[in-house]
């Protein structure tokens, strides 16, 4: 790889038509060979900064550009986007729309063909092998999962053999498992191919695991560039920009009198570091077997019988009749290549008043399908689904929506009007409710959406969109709440808002079912966890029970939150589920 670096000098940029510059006197040097995370709050200019690297700014967005950006010594103003993209590859946050050809291979070949490179086929083959999609070259782009599409977008960039790869918020649109897959590929590129990697990232646990330096962008300027361990220790700076430090770092900061610091004086940023730095919990909290057998292996595995017992308890407790029952439900979809795809098979389930249910499981395990069946938008192919006493096959979804609300995992699909305010009011108005304006104002105020109320929901940032979609749901005053991936972008902000919304609605809400990859949300909020897989429920138990079974989590491709991993390393009998709980456990030890 050629010795090159990206140098930004005193860059000020204003978008055409914008009043304020988005970048102000930004200066940054990214040397070759690093794995850099760029962090910053919403609207801080992170993405704008990265779009100057490949010349999209100033060549595509011709705003007021002052200062200088050089890539490998070439002033970007003297080159063009196509030429610069050979050196700087860019994977957009909205990667799905980066794919412009119908099949995977065509899309990866697109750039080399545009540049008239004779070896375009070999390039595409190599790029697809690098991202692990060599077998899917003939597939249509729309047949792939979101994670695979992201890898195709990455392969499309790699086909040009760039020295730099910029990836805009991989964890925002992908579930944690796929985001990790992308990060593994990036790590491989970084280590084996010496590619310089730049990611825009909100999620500090990925930064701690994969990056080696981080840059904080604040108010259009570069506030600092530090090694990751140092950067993640600047907790005040991070929190001021809505970036949440890794759970273990937060725990370390909350422990009294520097008990959580490492010998070199800083807080740990990964679980491994934390396990070495934190005080060992008191013996009374420890599993007696752990001392001899060494950690988790000593614990007796949770058997299926245990789970069934735990699951049957709520109903046996005399909680009354179930609100929702699924009786021997089978459901699936026809597919283009594989015929009928059976997603759910012989599913028997009941949900009771007061249940806080979390559906977890790998992609395609049927979480979203189950939720859609509960809305009545689809009727089960086999068996019956009864919601609040109504058979969904005999009831229109509009009628079920009297009591039930479904919040789509892609908030964009919920915006049907041209302002957020109208969208929130839509349900109430269509049902001729009274005092619509006041109720809408209340909701907008509660979710801090007032300043966005007259904007088009589609044009908001992802986090804001999610908040608006919660507002739409809250307006329906539901008894049964169905949330599909409410914290899709994995940030604590949205997690807080989701739990806040649930509390707000608690007076009337009787059951909440959340499909989620976000095990931190599951750990903090749920009282019943359904692990889905193979068309059925693999486990139905409390979060403590599920998180105490690493094999079960591994089988579904789920990664427990850091506190749970830490509990495991300490050999705690029952896993601690929240950061506060861990702080308590660790302080009690002394």
């Amino acid at each position, binding site marked *: 790889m050629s010795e090159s670096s990206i140098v930004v000098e005193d860059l000020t940029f204003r978008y055409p038509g914008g009043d304020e510059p988005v970048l102000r006197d930004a200066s940054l040097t990214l040397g070759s060979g690093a794995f850099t995370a760029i962090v910053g709050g919403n609207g801080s200019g992170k993405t704008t900064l990265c779009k100057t690297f490949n010349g999209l700014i100033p060549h595509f967005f011709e705003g007021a550009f002052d200062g200088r950006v050089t890539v490998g010594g070439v002033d970007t103003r003297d080159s063009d986007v196509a030429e610069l993209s050979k050196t700087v590859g860019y994977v957009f946050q909205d990667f799905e729309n980066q794919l*412009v050809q119908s099949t995977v291979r065509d899309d990866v070949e697109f750039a080399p063909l545009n540049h008239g490179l004779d070896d375009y086929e070999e390039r595409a083959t190599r790029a697809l092998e690098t991202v692990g999609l060599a077998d899917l070259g003939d597939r249509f782009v729309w047949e792939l999962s979101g994670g695979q599409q992201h890898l195709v977008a990455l392969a499309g960039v790699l086909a040009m053999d760039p020295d730099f790869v910029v990836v805009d918020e991989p964890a925002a649109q992908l579930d944690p498992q796929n985001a990790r897959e992308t990060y593994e590929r990036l790590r491989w590129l970084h280590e084996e191919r010496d590619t310089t990697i730049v990611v825009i990232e909100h999620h500090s646990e990925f930064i701690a695991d994969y990056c080696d330096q981080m840059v904080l962008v604040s108010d259009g300027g570069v506030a600092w560039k530090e090694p990751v361990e140092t950067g993640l220790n600047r907790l005040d700076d991070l929190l001021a920009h809505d970036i949440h430090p890794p759970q273990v770092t937060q725990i370390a900061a909350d422990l009294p009198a520097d008990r959580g610091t490492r010998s070199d004086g800083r807080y740990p940023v990964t679980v491994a570091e934390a396990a070495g730095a934190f005080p060992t919990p008191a013996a009374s909290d420890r599993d007696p077997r752990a001392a001899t057998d060494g950690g988790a292996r000593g614990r007796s595995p949770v058997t299926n019988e245990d789970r069934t017992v735990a699951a049957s308890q709520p109903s046996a407790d005399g909680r009354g009749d179930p609100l929702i029952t699924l009786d021997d439900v089978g459901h699936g979809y026809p597919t283009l290549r594989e015929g009928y795809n059976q997603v759910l098979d012989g599913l028997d389930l009941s949900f009771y008043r007061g249940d806080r249910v979390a559906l977890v499981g790998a992609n395609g395990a049927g979480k979203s399908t189950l939720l859609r069946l509960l809305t009545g938008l689809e009727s089960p192919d086999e068996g019956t689904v009864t919601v609040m006493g109504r058979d969904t096959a005999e009831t229109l979804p509009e009628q079920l929506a009297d009591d039930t609300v479904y919040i789509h995992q892609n908030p964009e699909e919920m915006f049907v009007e041209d302002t957020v305010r109208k969208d929130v009011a839509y349900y109430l108005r269509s049902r001729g409710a009274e005092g619509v304006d006041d109720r809408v104002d209340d909701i907008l105020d509660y979710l801090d959406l007032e300043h966005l109320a007259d904007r088009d929901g589609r044009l908001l940032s992802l986090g804001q969109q999610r908040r608006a979609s919660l507002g739409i749901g809250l307006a329906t005053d539901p008894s049964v709440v169905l949330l599909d991936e409410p914290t899709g972008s994995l940030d604590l902000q949205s997690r807080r808002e989701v739990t806040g919304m649930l509390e707000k609605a608690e007076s009337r809400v009787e059951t909440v079912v959340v499909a989620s990859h976000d095990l931190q949300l599951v750990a903090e909020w749920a009282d019943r966890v359904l692990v889905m897989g193979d068309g059925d429920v693999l486990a139905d138990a409390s979060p403590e029970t599920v998180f105490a079974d690493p094999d079960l989590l591994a089988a579904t491709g789920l990664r427990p939150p850091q506190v749970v991993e830490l509990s495991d390393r300490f050999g705690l009998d029952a896993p601690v589920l929240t950061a506060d709980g861990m702080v308590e456990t660790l302080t009690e030890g002394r």
Partner: protein
Amino acid sequence: MKYVDAVTDISIADVKVDLMRTAYANDRALLNTFDPRVVLIWSVLFMIVPWLFYDPRPLAAMLAAAFVLAALSQVSKYLLALLLFGQLTNVGFFVVLVPLMGGVVEAVSYLSGNLDPGALGEAVPIVATALERGVSTALTNQEVGIDAVGAVVPFFLKLTIISVISLAVFSAMSPQKISKGLLRLGVPRQLTFAITYGYRMMPLLVEEYHSLINSFRLRSQVPEKQGLLRWRYFLYLLKLSAKAFYPLIFNVAKRARVTVEAMETKGFSHSLGDERSRELRTGGMRIAPRDVTFVSGSLLFVVALGVFL
């Protein structure tokens, strides 16, 4: 409400997959195995050929051949059924419409011949006679309608042949092949790109449209009284499906913003003037003996129809 679900839910999934298969699964389609240029020129040729015939018999034979081709090209049964239904109702309509118009003409001409503006008292029996004559004309002159159908049958046959052939061609050939062929024939790259991009986006838009309709449904109120044959309910669904286009268009516009940026980074503008890029894209096409056989065979078939039928 099972039958409603059958219309709005299950069959939608089936129809979607069937249409996808028509548009996207072309591996075994006959027309996809020929050189794309040959197929494109051939289809233009056969858009013209039916107009050279008037006699229904050779046209019917051509239609049968077109259907065989469609079957070999795995055209969606739903699309073919829709097409046939449209053409048959069109033709059938003449059987009703022609006598009806005859009746109206009869009644009006009787009226204008007999009605005296000066004597309004006699108007009622005259109008009644006019109506009677009109109705009896409309009810008894079915053979006129059938004659009319006979007159338009060749026209409909021609239209159907063209429709079936173009369905077969566009569902059998992969977008890459079509645009490759067009590009080689000198069509500008912007247009050929638009074709492949359209193919790429279509399934996505269908999905998005479906989920927007679902969003509307979950937040709307069904009409309380559903009316005869539930017409109010179906009108409501129809209104929703029209409304859902509005957010769809906005979403598409939003997608396009990223797409144009991405195309720039992938060197699309660069490729427009790049001769090497064009050569690589259109390379590897060769007219094989089987292409020639296909074209000459189908021409022979037409000539034979002209001579013998």
